[in-house]
């Protein structure tokens, strides 16, 4: 046979709780206990509240740019929920919901977007890495972090999060390829939220799925409804097994939608239709979860009212904490460049406001002495 099949393959799409409220028992049963479901839902609501308040803070000049999570809460949260507490979460900047689940204090995120590096001074016990501004670069760090754990014989894995846009960067390819070929336990979790600022996913990936990006490396690829926390959890379960037990990376595409602007510096009305937004609003993971909980008799309006209040209070308190942190000192510009600050930098620090030289100011004096001599 001159034409033979060198490979046959396919991609599964997972959906458990769909936008019409139908729930697949076969896959969904026992995936998430009811008490956890309640916690997860409450968590999402708090995170959504942060989006609302952060937006106002930015508009009133109390914060810089802020990227909202709105519409995508189920993705990072579903993933964080399934991971062990000591697995690395290597995120981008649109995973607040998952990070808070990890215990990362909300004021850290606020502080970061308020222009203070200490927001990224994350206690290592959270196993979270700093916000990654350059798109597509952090997957390599995730690969290295997981590799390090594997090297030391630890069972820790890494899960790295990124957008549809990030999959266009070369580093994404290199990270997946390293993980696949060197057997490194990383889960590559793509939040396909349909947009990279103003550029639609079709320009990042014109293939039928983003999930098939992973086929290039021979790793398992899964696509799921990213607004369905059950589907996310199901995929994560499979992926965690594959990574933890077999050192095999997995690629997950969670199909979701960025309900808000790209950041508070953006105005999405310039480039996308109201209709599209409305359609996705009907698929909102918060609504879906609430309806589901209500249908199970686990939730009611009174509880919601209480939760809304709690969310407002939680976020407001975090904002207060963030705003009450003292401004960093000028010296901080210099003191973190190296473990030991070289003389040259120390001099720049010590003279930054007293002389323009940035060199040992005694030089000026001595030179002047010489001049006069």
């Amino acid at each position, binding site marked *: 046979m001159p034409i033979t099949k060198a490979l046959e393959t396919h991609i599964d799409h997972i959906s458990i709780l769909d936008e019409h409220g139908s729930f697949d028992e076969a896959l969904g049963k026992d995936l998430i206990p009811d008490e956890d479901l309640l916690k997860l839902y409450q968590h999402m609501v708090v995170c959504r509240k942060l989006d609302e308040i952060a937006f106002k803070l930015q508009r009133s000049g109390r914060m810089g740019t802020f990227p909202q999570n709105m519409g995508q809460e189920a993705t990072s949260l579903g993933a964080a929920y399934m991971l062990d507490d000591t697995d690395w979460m290597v995120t981008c900047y649109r995973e607040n919901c998952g990070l808070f689940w990890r215990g990362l204090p909300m004021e850290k995120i606020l502080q970061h977007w308020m222009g203070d590096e200490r927001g990224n001074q994350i206690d290592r016990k959270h196993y979270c890495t700093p916000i990654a501004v350059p798109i597509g670069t952090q997957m390599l760090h995730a690969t290295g972090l997981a590799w390090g754990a594997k090297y030391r014989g630890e069972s820790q894995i890494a899960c790295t999060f990124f957008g549809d846009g990030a999959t266009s960067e070369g580093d994404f390819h290199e990270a997946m390829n390293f993980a696949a070929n060197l057997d490194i336990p990383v889960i590559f979790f793509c939040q396909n939220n349909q947009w990279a600022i103003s*550029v639609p996913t079709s320009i990042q990936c014109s293939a039928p799925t983003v999930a098939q990006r992973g086929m290039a490396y021979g790793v398992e690829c899964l696509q799921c409804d990213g607004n369905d926390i059950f589907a996310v959890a199901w995929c994560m379960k499979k992926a965690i097994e594959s990574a933890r037990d077999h050192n095999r990376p997995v690629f997950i595409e969670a199909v979701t939608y960025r309900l808000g602007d790209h950041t508070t510096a953006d105005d999405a009305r310039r480039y996308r239709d109201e209709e599209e937004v409305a359609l996705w609003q009907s698929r909102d993971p918060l609504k879906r979860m609430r309806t589901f909980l209500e249908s199970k008799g686990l939730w009611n309006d009174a509880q919601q009212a209480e939760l809304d209040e709690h969310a407002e209070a939680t976020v407001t308190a975090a904002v207060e904490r963030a705003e009450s942190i003292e401004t960093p000192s000028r010296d901080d510009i210099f003191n973190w460049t190296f473990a030991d600050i070289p003389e040259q930098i120390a001099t720049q620090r010590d003279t930054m406001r007293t002389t323009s030289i940035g060199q040992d100011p005694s030089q000026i004096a001595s030179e002047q002495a010489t001049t006069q001599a």
Partner: protein
Amino acid sequence: MANLTLVQAINLALVQEMEKDERVMILGEDVGLNGGVFRVTEGLFNRFGGDRVIDTPLAESGIIGTSIGLAMSGQRPVPEIQFEGFLGPAYDQICSHAARMRTRTRSAFTVPMTIRVPVGGGIHAPELHSDSPEAIYAHQPGLKVVMPASPYDAKGLLISAIRDPDPVIFFEPKRIYRAFREEVPEDEYTVPIGKARTVCEGEELTIVSWGASVVQCMQAIERSNDSIELIDLRTIYPIDMDAIEASVKKTGRCVIVHEAPRTSGFGAEIATQIMERCFLHLEAPVQRVAGFDTIMPYYKLETEYLPDADRIEKAINEIRAY
């Protein structure tokens, strides 16, 4: 004549060059319908269509690498990199290919491409949105590096860059994108690459600067009682040393102001060439007011990092007193 911001002047230059020359194409992230995150390419997508104003995948090496191919094929690509901090992924295509193609092929292939990049600090942006990497590219042979400090120059230099037969990195100081307006002729004109501009004349001290810092230099000069000459470099490479030499030979004193880290910044090159050319005319060491040898801080501290009129004034006084 119209009273334009720097953003508007650049937009106008792009429109005029695209109308004049079918080979000109704009490509980058969000440059299409959205008009760029700074709105520099606003209106171009509607005016020239999606074949000439192209939203690309989010991949800087891809943007520059395909632009090199486009240029080799006879087009005049004007790729945009969204912020100077994202030049990094494209560094290899810029330095290993764009800069070398003419030398490598003895002009059989050339890369007439203008890379537009917003540059510098001071807009309260996140990390990697506030750097000043001009010295990096000035050290790479085969590249021209341009940074206007005014709307008039921005338009004229950009037109020169697009028409230039070699690759040009066109840095746009984002702090002054909309900081002030200037009369800008509606007709096309060029400002030559490689020629500095004397912003104001003086006899006692020369300040050399470029980009957004020129504004701070002017503030410091206004405060000072000394007679100070201000040279806006406009082009980093090839540098207009003749202009600097003439000025420093006259004044005998020089202060260089730039945002980039001090060590190995372009100020060092200028100071060294001044020493080489004006040694016996110098009354004091050339002084640098620059960023520090540290990562540009997040925005709570960014004004401490950027050279401001205070620091420039101190330098003037120190050098005058030397």
